[in-house]
């Protein structure tokens, strides 16, 4: 294993992680809800009466975050290089898979691990594992 020192950002990533944990902490202690992006989006796509508004406000916050950051000119626009067909397939799999698994990187990976939930520990291990395997196949077998 070779470390990618040129792209490794320990401090920025740790600080960003602390902010993500802070957001999750505010939501669970303040409103009693789990900060899982897939769960929040899923409940907005397939709404239940009386349980939609807060999801839309949270999604609005996510959408406005780049603009707020750009006021201080520190945000870098992302570069998405995946081809269109692969991007659509990726979106479909992420949407379906996270609903089936009841969570994603934030719901299971951040909140679930913070709760020490065995279910979330299993989920995180499995999506990491299939992520490692997929990248290996795409980058080192197919190309």
């Amino acid at each position, binding site marked *: 294993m070779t470390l990618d020192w040129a792209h*490794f950002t320990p401090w920025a990533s740790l600080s960003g992680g602390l902010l*993500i*944990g802070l957001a999750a902490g505010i939501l669970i202690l303040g409103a009693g809800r789990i900060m899982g992006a897939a769960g929040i989006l899923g409940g907005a796509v397939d709404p239940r009466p009386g349980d939609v508004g807060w999801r839309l406000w949270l999604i609005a916050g996510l959408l406005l975050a780049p603009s707020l950051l750009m006021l201080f000119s520190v945000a870098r626009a*992302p570069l998405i290089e995946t081809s269109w067909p692969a991007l659509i*397939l990726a979106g479909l799999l*992420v949407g379906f*898979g996270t609903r089936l698994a009841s969570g994603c990187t934030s719901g299971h990976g951040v909140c679930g691990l913070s709760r020490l939930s065995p279910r979330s520990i299993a989920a995180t291990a499995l999506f990491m594992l299939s992520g490692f395997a997929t*990248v290996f196949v795409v980058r080192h077998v197919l190309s």
Partner: protein
Amino acid sequence: MRNILSLAVGLVFGIGLCVSGMTEPAKVLGFLDLAGLWDPSLAFVMGGAIAIGLVAFSFAKRRTAALNGEPMQMPTARAIDRPLVVGSLIFGIGWSLAGICPGPGVVNVGFLNPRALVFVAAMAIGMLAYKLVIGLRLPAAGPIGQDA
């Protein structure tokens, strides 16, 4: 109150994702590529988030109501069942094809990135497809709060 709080949470979550580098697919893929040049940044994001999360959830677990008076909706499911396993494996494949998971996908729409918009639209269709497939087999959805 809940709406303002949710907006603030979304902003802090989104800014955290940007600062951490997780809105950059290349950084996510750099973590998942163990056989190439490996970028461990994602582990630091998780570590930072969980460090705060452990404290917050240890308080939350001891409460029955949130500070705004609403019930604490802590997930109740315990079983490591087939949907969890299969769903996580499917999610991992999609996540690593594009280097985008649900949170960063939405934030990247906020950057007005057309590719992110297509990803999020496909993700919404995937979520609706789940409802169609599973809705046909299960009569009722589980209680609110089961979603992690």
